[in-house]
């Protein structure tokens, strides 16, 4: 296999090539694996239909609970598996710091936009991939947001985020009982996922494209 390396150039294509090159060399999985992770990520989001407006905006209206159920279950299961993987040396922690102002201000902005757009930065691209132009417009807004953030990072956004209060994980509050804490956390979060009442908001326009016997709203009736 011939590896073409393009390190020179500042036009868009060269910089996209440099992006691939960076991933090849940064040691976080091979290029193919990272691409594959993306395919599976997009596939799961699409196949479970959580990229739909009716899922996240529906949750904001408390008319659909699929997204929190799926998220909590994923967190519950992963927390237990990951902890023991880290203990066995098969993974590492990648904890984000506690920056109070950044987390709270960012969380407020993020929550407002998630309810209105009905997507998050992970489900948005999957939605664009199934032909949603409104989300593409949202992505253009997002790119400008990213531009503004980059341009004014040093002068405005970094001071706004405040100082880091360090990186903490839950188990550090209970020295000596780490295993128990992990198990309880994982199990409790998974149980939350199960007990959140299942509610679904369907989109007629999508369902109409399916054959009658494959419609999920009919099956439940």
């Amino acid at each position, binding site marked *: 296999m011939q590896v073409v390396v393009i390190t020179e150039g500042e036009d868009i294509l060269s910089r996209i090539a440099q992006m691939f090159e960076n991933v090849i060399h940064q040691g976080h999985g091979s290029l193919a694996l990272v691409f594959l992770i993306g395919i599976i990520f997009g596939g799961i989001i699409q196949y479970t239909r959580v990229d739909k407006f009716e899922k996240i905006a529906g949750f904001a209206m408390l008319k659909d609970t699929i997204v929190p159920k799926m998220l909590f279950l994923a967190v519950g299961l992963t927390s237990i598996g990951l902890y023991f993987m880290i203990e066995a040396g098969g993974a590492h922690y990648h904890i984000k710091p506690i920056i109070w102002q950044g987390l709270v201000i960012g969380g407020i902005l993020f929550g407002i936009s998630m309810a209105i757009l009905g997507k998050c*930065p992970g489900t948005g691209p999957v939605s664009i991939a199934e032909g949603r132009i409104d989300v593409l417009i949202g992505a253009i807004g997002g790119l400008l947001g990213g531009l503004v953030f980059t341009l004014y990072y040093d002068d405005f956004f970094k001071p706004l985020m405040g100082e880091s209060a360090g990186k903490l994980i839950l188990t550090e509050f209970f020295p000596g009982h780490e295993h128990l804490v992990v198990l309880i956390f994982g199990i409790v979060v998974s149980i939350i996922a199960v007990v959140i009442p299942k509610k679904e908001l369907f989109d007629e326009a999508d369902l109409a494209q399916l054959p009658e016997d494959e419609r999920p709203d009919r099956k439940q009736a």
Partner: protein
Amino acid sequence: MNRLPWWMGGILMSGLLLLTFSIYGADRPIGASTYVPYFAGIIFDLDPEKYSYLKHIANPGAWEGVMLFGALFGGFVTSVFITKSFRISLIPTGWQKYKNNSVVSRLLWSFFSGFIMIIGARLAGGCTSGHFMSGMSQMAISSMIFGTVVLIVVIVTGRLFYNVKEK
């Protein structure tokens, strides 16, 4: 079967997270918002040497950028062949039902919310993927703070922004 049940989605997502965290996988968490300023830097032709933030995100931005290409591809193929939901659309059915019928209104709100979404995610240092899924799976306190704020604000916004009562 044109859609997976939520529990299957949760189990599969958990498997993907563990694979990504594993030293035999990518040895890092999944994230999905750093790629946006990364691409903004490329599209608006900003010199990475001049902007400290672009330098700061050079590696995670590239990683997530490649993952994004995969997600677009995976999402497109799945929507065409499995869920059969691919169609060009300007306004979601739910928006028409609970907000209004105006395409212009939807597009303007989309643009606005996309703009503050990325600023919010970058201020907090993560999004649903990086904080909620990857961060909470590590039991990170920062991610729990973010997750709690987001959950509350999403529900409050939903109540105020949409005509929830209609039907």
